[in-house]
Every structure is written in C-alpha cells, then in structure tokens.
C-alpha cells in the first residue's frame, strides 16, 4: 500500500523545519509518509536543504501554481507565517487548491492569540468564545481559523492546532530569554506565578503528526501545550540553571505591566501636528530637491522675511511643533515581549487533544529542557559542558 502523500507548507520556518527534521531523523515517523517540503524561497532554508528530502519553491499567492503543486497530495500541513496577504490570501489559495485537488486532510497551525493578550479564564478550553480584543496578529489568526473551518465544511477534513509560546531548539523565545537572562534584564510579573504556556517544538511537531494521521476528531480546534503548567519563575530558573547562575529577578505587578501596555500605544498625531510637520524645516528642505517645491519654498521664505519681525515671530510660534523629550527606557523592561507575555494567566489545557486524538507528549519537562540545553550549547549561546572527542585529520 502506498504511503500517504503529505505537503508541508512553510517548511523552512521554525516549526516547519523541526517537522521536516523529525520526519527525516525519527524512525517512529520516518517512513510513514511521502512528503514534500514547500518553501517560499531558499534564503532561510539551510536547515532543511542539508537533508536529502524533496523540496520545492511555492508562492502561495500564485493560485494556478499552488493548485498544480498540490495535485496528488492526500494531506496538507500548513506552517506558514508571513504578512497578512500571505496568511489570508495564501491560505485561501491553499484551501481552494485542496478542495479542487481532492486533498482529504488539512492540518493548520493557529495560535492562542485568538483569545487576546489577556485571555478570559474560560479560554482554558477550546470551546471558549474568541476574545474580540486582540492584536492585529490575533485578528489574522482568528480570520484564518474561520477560513479553515469553512474548508472543513467544504469537504476538506481540517484540524486546527493552537499552541501558545513555542520553546525548544531554534526557538526565538528561548534565544531571547537566555540573552536577556545573561544580561540581567528579566523581570518577573507577579513573582512569575502565571503559566508560560510554552510548548516544546518537538511536542508540537508530534501533535501535528498525530493529527494528520488521525481518523477522528476533524473539524475541531485543539490546544497544544505541555501536560502540566510551568510558571515563568520555574522557566527562567531552569534557563539560569543551564548556565549555573542564581539570578535575583526584579519584580513588577501585573497591573503595572498592563498600564504600561495600554500607555505605550502611540497617540495618533492630530491635524495640527501633521500640518506642522509639513511646514517644518526638515520637510521643506527634503522636498526642495524638486525644483517646483524649491521655488515655492523660496517664495514663501521671501514673503515671510518681508513681514515685520513681530509677525514673523507670531507665524513661527503658530507652526513650530513642540520638542518632545521621552524619558529613558524603564530598565525593568516592562515593554519587552518576555514581560508582557507574562500577564496571561490562563493555562490552555491540552486535555482535549490527548483525549480525542490520542496525543502523548514526546518530551516531558526535564527532557525538553535537556534538548534545549544541548542545542543552546551547540549554538554557542551558552558554554558547552563538554566537547565531543574527535581525532585530528592530518594532511
């Protein structure tokens, strides 16, 4: 019997590349599928182009090519990220091509950002209503989820997997977290007591593979998370232990961070301010490279200088914009993502995916941190504990 043909779209990204590596390295999945890694371009694909796997470039915004590329596949796993055009129009093209080509299964990677930056307590489970107060990214992911449910309604069995933060090797959150930890810039919100919702990338990959071969549970959204909540304090202490330090974390309250998040939205400039910008010396000098503007500017200057000093001063005082001096950055990093992410209090339980799809965690917390440590050592981001012994090759 031939193996199911799976198209992995967005295969050069953080999650996509981890999925390709798993399918290549792990005997448990190695020969289950015949897969093709679809990537947007080769610039970021080095992690998978080192492997002898089938790779093809695909522009998701080019529907005829998408349709042709996906012909003959049984399933699609979508790991793409990008701008809103790619995430919405690209996903639309994927879904339409799947439908027209008779693709049977579609696994889509969503995000808990659909529940907002400060999710309600009922979002511990997937059936909670989505929070309308979201970031722009959350809005796009929510719109994507709606599209995927429509694909399902149109005959392409679909599953939405919903991780929160993703950890493990190559995780930006881990790289950033370790760098900030070493720089002494980590703060704990409410003593770091809230759950991280960091799922190890290899556990997320396991969930994707379990989903794509599932016979049941389609047309549903599933949280993918570690089995038990891990607090931010535990998480940063785990990272600190990797480098043998015992940091004293500055503490801030959740209310302080929320206030800071609300206050950090830049005010939209008013009409007067915008008009002032148009009349500013910098703007006028900039546009004066165009002869017509230069001539207008010179004329305006002549008119102004012909007025009495009193009138010149009155006009200048009306159009001059105030000089805004911003305070130096708060050293407690209130606006950093690793701080703002700590205000989320809800643990998005993976109970449903375990119960309905039979998912089991590949790595428990200690093994997950161990693989993370090994990768950080490999990446020279923390000192290696030991070097593998190798014999020199003498010419």
């Amino acid at each position, binding site marked *: 019997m031939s193996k199911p043909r799976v198209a992995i779209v967005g295969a050069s990204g953080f999650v996509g590349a981890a999925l390709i590596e798993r399918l290549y*390295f792990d*005997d448990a999945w190695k020969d289950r599928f015949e897969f093709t890694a679809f990537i947007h371009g*080769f610039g970021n694909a*080095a992690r998978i*182009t080192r492997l002898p796997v089938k790779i093809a470039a695909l522009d998701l915004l080019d529907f005829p090519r998408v349709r042709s590329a996906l012909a003959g596949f049984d399933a699609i796993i979508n790991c793409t990220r990008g701008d809103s055009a790619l995430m919405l129009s690209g996903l639309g093209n994927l879904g339409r091509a799947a439908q027209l080509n008779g693709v049977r299964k579609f696994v889509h990677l969503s995000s808990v950002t659909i529940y907002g930056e400060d999710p309600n307590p009922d979002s511990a489970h997937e059936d909670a209503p989505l929070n309308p107060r979201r970031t722009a990214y959350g809005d796009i992911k929510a719109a994507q989820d709606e599209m995927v449910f429509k694909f399902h309604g149109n005959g392409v069995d679909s599953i939405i997997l919903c991780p929160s933060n993703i950890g493990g090797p190559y995780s930006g959150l881990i790289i950033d977290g370790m760098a900030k930890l070493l720089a002494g810039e980590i703060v704990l919100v409410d003593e770091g007591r809230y759950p991280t919702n960091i799922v190890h990338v290899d556990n997320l990959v396991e969930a994707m593979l379990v989903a794509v071969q599932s016979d049941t549970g389609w047309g549903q959204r599933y949280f993918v998370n570690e089995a038990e909540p891990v607090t931010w304090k535990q998480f940063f202490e785990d990272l600190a232990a990797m480098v043998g330090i015992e940091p004293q974390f500055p503490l801030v309250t959740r209310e302080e961070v929320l206030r800071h998040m609300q206050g950090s939205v830049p005010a939209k400039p008013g009409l007067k301010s915008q008009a002032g910008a148009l009349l500013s010396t910098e703007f006028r000098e900039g546009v004066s490279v165009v002869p017509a503007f230069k001539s207008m500017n010179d004329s305006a200057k002549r008119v102004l200088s012909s007025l009495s000093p009193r009138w010149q001063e009155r006009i200048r005082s009306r159009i001059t914009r105030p000089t805004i001096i911003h305070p130096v950055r708060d050293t407690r990093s209130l606006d950093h993502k690793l701080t703002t992410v700590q205000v989320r209090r809800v643990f998005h339980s993976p109970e449903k995916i375990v119960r309905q799809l039979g998912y089991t965690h590949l790595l428990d917390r200690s093994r997950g941190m161990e693989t993370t440590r090994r990768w950080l050592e490999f990446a020279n981001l923390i000192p290696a504990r030991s070097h*593998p012994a190798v014999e020199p090759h003498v010419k």
Partner: protein
Amino acid sequence: MQSTDKVRLAFIGCGAITRMEQLPAALRSPLVDVAALVDAQAESAVALARMYGLSVRATSNLADVLDDVQGCVLATPNDTHYPIAKQILERGKPVLIEKPITTRYDHALELCEIAEKHGTFISVGYRFRFFPSARLLKKLLDENYFGRVLSFHCEMGSAGGWTPVSGYNMDRARSGGGVMVINGTHFLDLAMFWFGEPVSHVYQDDDYGNVEANCKGVWSYDTPRGQFDGSFFFSKTIKLSNRFLIETERGRVEWSAADAERIRVFDRNRPDVKFELSSARRPGVVDSFRDQIEEFCMNTVRPGTVTSDGPNGARSIRLIEDMYRGATRLDESWQPRRVIG
C-alpha cells in the same frame, strides 16, 4: 596610473552580488569604466544596465566583449568559475573572481597556470582582507606586538540570509559545498592571511546528502613562534557574532566583521580597560569592494601586489576539499530519534 586612465571592465554574471555590490562599487570608482555586462540570460544583463542607467553592451556572449575590455569581474555560480575564467585568462585578460576561485583544487591550479602562461593574473574576492582592521591586525601579528598567539576562536553565522538569484548555493554540485564554501571561506581566508596554513584540522558538519548548514572544527598551526589551535563555527541557521577572538600572551584580541577600522584588545594586565586600536592613518570611508576592484584595475595597468591572488584562492580550496574529505557528523543530540526495530 593617472586618475583619468579608466580601466575597461566587463562584469560577468548579473546576479545579486554584481547588482548589489560589485557593480555599484565599480560605479563609485574613478578608475573603472564599466564596458559590458554579461549574463547567461541576456535580459538580466539588460535589466541591470537599465537599473543603473548604463549605456553599455549587455549580452549573453562573453566572447563578443572580451576583445573590448582590459579585465573581467566574474560573479557567476561557483561551478561556472572555472570554464569562464579559463576563457578569459586564455585571452590574456586578468579576472577578479568572486570567492571561491573554483569548486575544485585541480581547476584552481590549472587557472593559476594559465594565468602565468599568458602573463596575466587572478584576483579572488576575499574582501575582508581589504578592511583596514584586518590589515592592521596582520601587521601587529607579524610584528609580534601581542606576543605569542595561544589560540583563537572564530564564528560567522546568520539565520538564513544571502539568496543568489539562481539558488545554486543549495546544490552541492554547483556551489562546491555549503556554509563552509559560501561563508566560512571568508574567515578561513582571514585565518590564512594572519596565521598561514594550518598543518592539520578537525572538521564536522551537518550535511546528510546535500549542502551543510553548520560546520565546526579546529585548525592547528605550527609556526616559528609556536603551536596553537583555532576553532571555528560557521552557520546558516544561527546568528553568530561574526568575529575572531584571539588569545595572545598580551591578552585577548577581537576582530569583528562589523568593524572595518578597529580591533579591540583586552590586555591581561588591565582587565578593567578595553583598548581599541586603529591605523593612525585614517582610511576615510571603508569600501572594501571598491578597494579590491581598484587594486585589480591598478594591477591591470601595471603589475604589482595582488592582495588575494590565484594561488591564495587555490590554497583555500585545497584546504576546504581536504576538510570535506575528512568530515564527520556534528553531534545533534537534541534531535528526537527513536530507533525502531
């Protein structure tokens, strides 16, 4: 050479490096007369000429322009360096070849022989040698200013990055290798510039059948001033610091690819002070691509020193070939690998 004596150059290969670096550098130079653009796809040459408003010959046929130019800048996929450079050198014209010189050592040697036979020369695009900081470091090392070199570590890496138009860098047959050839070769060349050729090496990478994304290893040196090791790490998946850290008797010396003018010294006797050294003679705006093209032009008119010549490029390829031959796998013990059966 007089500043009015412009050297007529043809640019072979109109991909990303020519479009973004070599051609703009040539246009900034008062010594260069861009005479022709050549690309296997003639429309790429035409588009590039239009992009920079150039009224020059834009063609797919190198033979058409060779008689009309004094030298060529070659920036095509690595596997084409050998046949194209051979054609240029056999006409007695010099060629500046983007690194690596070729994908094979025997081809590199053959090109050097052809250049010598026809009384011309090869320059290889190792532009870091043109950084005033790299030259200053060589001078200070040669003068034993820092005392004995005890060891060094160098690393260069980015998460993704440079994407040649043709995508040839993802194909070993065309590129000659992965991150070692594409990026690491720059730092290998610098190490050869400063310390000479290593006597032995250890090399590991993560290639499973195509081109490596990461490689690590050690080069060992035996110099008149002592023996030492230098470790390296080159990556196409991880952002690294892009620098050399050289441990010397005097202290740690840091050279960074991000600073073309200065080197930093952390003196053992003054751990509280960071010293920054730069040439007393201010270099003005550092423009390494232009500097190399101008050196190439000057050598075209009157033979002199070629900072990175053909034999140097050949030595580099010999070492890379040797490393690939003795390659072992990098440890990736973070990968979940369940062995079934």
